[in-house]
């Protein structure tokens, strides 16, 4: 469903060019749960931003359901994002003046959904993610885990086909992280959501079915979980990270 073809991204001026992404190519199939790993500065967030059309590529193509997102015009981009993409951010990015219900509902409002159906849809998704009791509360009144689940709900409530998650467990304690990752796995397996998650945490990545490793803007390695247990997959991930070198101590 998603094809990334020879994507390059440069920053800076003529004399001082930084290559953030260097000829990256990969493919994501419908219903996959993919993690992209790498140390700080490896280019993983840049890659995510390019896929999400928040940032533009310097060269290469990104195809979502056959449509080249790098060629979509400015006015169509917003429509593309609200209809096709769901976002989950490290710092939740909920609006602090809205209740959780409204934070989830806003994705539907932006999509011009029928106002009468919004509340029902929100409650249905909230039920799946176990945050029905917190719907009336404001973000500052609930835990980080609940906030991130609300963000997950927002990312899928409008029926978006690809969910992009940027370090979703970055601001959570280990217990909340675990429960969030289980929920994301559930979203992937039960609701068939395609998830692309960027992380530098091997534990989070081990929930994915496939892991791509980025180093200095290049695709370095790929791990596929297959039939292995999550624990085994986790250890393999750590081995790859050891190979990546340098940053291992940061990662553990």
């Amino acid at each position, binding site marked *: 469903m998603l094809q990334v073809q020879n994507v390059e991204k440069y920053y800076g001026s003529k004399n001082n060019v930084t290559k953030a992404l260097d000829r990256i190519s990969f493919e994501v199939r419908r219903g996959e749960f993919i993690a992209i790993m790498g140390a700080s500065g490896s280019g993983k967030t840049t890659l995510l931003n390019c896929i999400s059309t928040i940032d533009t590529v310097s060269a290469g193509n990104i195809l979502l359901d056959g449509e080249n997102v790098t060629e979509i015009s400015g006015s169509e981009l917003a429509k593309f*994002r609200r209809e096709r993409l769901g976002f989950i951010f490290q710092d939740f990015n909920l609006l602090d003046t*809205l209740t959780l219900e409204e934070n989830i509902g806003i*994705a539907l409002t932006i999509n011009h959904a029928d106002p009468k159906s919004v509340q029902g849809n929100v409650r249905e998704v909230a039920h799946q993610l176990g945050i029905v009791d917190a719907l009336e509360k404001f973000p500052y009144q609930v835990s980080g885990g609940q906030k991130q689940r609300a963000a997950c709900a927002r990312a899928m409530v409008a029926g978006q086909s690809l969910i992009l998650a940027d370090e979703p467990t970055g601001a959570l304690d280990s217990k909340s992280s675990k429960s969030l990752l289980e929920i994301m796995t559930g979203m992937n397996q039960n609701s068939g959501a395609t998830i692309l998650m960027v992380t530098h945490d091997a534990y989070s990545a081990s929930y994915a079915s496939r892991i791509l490793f980025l180093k200095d803007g290049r695709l370095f390695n790929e791990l596929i979980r297959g039939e292995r247990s999550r624990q085994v997959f986790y250890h393999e991930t750590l081995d790859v990270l050891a190979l990546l070198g340098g940053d291992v101590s940061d990662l553990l």
Partner: protein
Amino acid sequence: MTFSKLSARNAKRQARDYLVYFVTIVMAAALIYAFNGLVFSEEIRNLSHFLDSLPLIIVLASTVIICIVGWLVSYTTRFMLTKRSRELGTYVLLGMENKQVARLFFQENLMVGGIAIVCGTLLGNLLFQALRAVTLALFHVPYTFSFSFSIGAVLLTAAYFALIYLFALRRSLRRINRMKIYDLLYLDRQNENEAVKKSGRRRILFVVSIILGIIGTVLLLLRNLMLGIIGAALIIAFLYGFFLSFSSGVPDYFDKRPAKKFAGNNLLIFRSLASKLTTMGVIMATIAVLFTATLIAEGTGMVFNALFQSRTEQTTCFDIYIASNGWEEASLDDYMAYIDENIDVRADYRYGVYAADNDTVTQYVEANSDYWRNFEFDTLMAMSDYLALREMLGYSTVEVLDGQYIIHCQPYLEGLMSSYNKPLTVDGYEMAPGKVYTEHFTQSLWDGNGRGFILVVPNEALTTRPVIHRTYAAMTETPLSEATATAISDIRDAKDKSIAGYDTVFIKAAIQAENASMYAMIIFPLFYLALVLTMVAVTILTIQLLSDTDRYQRQYALLDNLGMERREMERSLFRQFAIFYAMPTLPSLLISLPFIFALGSALDAGVLTGIGQLWAIVGITLTLFFAIYIVYVFAAYTSYRKNVLPSR
């Protein structure tokens, strides 16, 4: 880097970050200086003795202004203290004493204030010239530019500002002195957890306050002093109650109607407003109270101005008008003696106003318009007198037909009189209705040329009618001096003691001077207050909004990510803006407009030319108010749009 350099740099940054605040302080200083200029101006004081109390009134108005500007400075410095506490905390962390930080903060604020006074004084000089020009024009004195730099005005302005800053900064300084590093470093976080509270009590308050507001407005309209005061108190209670409970009342409304909540941009708009009001309900309410007071003051001032103007116009068609109810022909002789000797008269005329033997026309007018009678009979004037007076006044000649009577009335009775088509009988002498004239003819008081109207009849009809007052009217070569006017009034006063009754003296020059003075003493201070009030209030609103720039920026960046269209973001931002600024003005308008209309319609009939003039008063009041308001709102909106919406 020395402390003073650091202060200077911070002051510069403060002026840039809080440009709206700085502009308002400069404008306030300019206005204060300009009005102080009036206080110290010999030239203005010499215009008329009616202006003797102008300095006192301006000083009183300035006292109120000091309080309001003091509020602004105090509010803004506390606000800046919260925003900049981390920076100040860092100074303490680096080893500065609290006292030194406080001094730093004090110095930079004083510097901003000082620069504001200097700029304000320069600008104030221009404003003073404008005020001077208006005042001179009011007194019909030609304006010539003369640069006047009044050291008294500068010192008084500086003294006012010293007071403002000392009071306003005291609190902030004490706060810095007592603060621990931790508090300073994390003061700006305190607001982040501000709750959007929901509670049943607030909901009740919301409903109760609206009821109080309606009762209060009705009481205010009843024009009874005691009830009016109660009404004003209720309205203040309403405004505070309303703004304190609004943040729960409106979300409650939407919570019960999810379909409305999730329609369009409603969600974003009402939620961000509600959260804003939770933190600034009291300020919003205070601003609404100030706005209400401003609008009522402006409107009242305009209505009174209309009253003075109409009185002048209606009583001063002659340069001198004296009416005596001593019936003898000789009753005006003492005035004549003085006038013949001292005044250069171009034309004059002595005549009598007569009583008819019935009150048919008075009854008609009384029944069909807003009119109260002074006499048990209609008042009459001889045709020859009328024609002579018209000629003296330079009015058009009238067509006189045998056997007809003419009606001369105040403009507001014209329609009514034109449709009066009954013949008139005086002592058996019958006349058909003739034309109706409405030029100014000194008809507003009982001893004018009739009250409201006079019936002009052929001389033959008056042979046996009694005179009710003897009258002298004159046009002079040059406007009379104040001294001459006083001398004539003195004759009247001396006479009043000796005879029963009261002579009426209208001297155009004196009435105009008095009217101009009233204008200067009522309208000037009112608009001085209104201007400063509006500027301060809208500045505080703007600072509040601009302080949220970061949060809104994050909000719109997120909405952009989520795929909201730019057009929709613009619309939502505009609506948030419009509602935010309209909030405090709407209740004020709802209260003050009915009040102004009620006051206007309470005036004597004929004072205002009609409902049109009342609308004009309301229009001018609103224009003055909103002109300033809109300039600020527009400036804030432009900068906000640029900073808040994602650039792509």
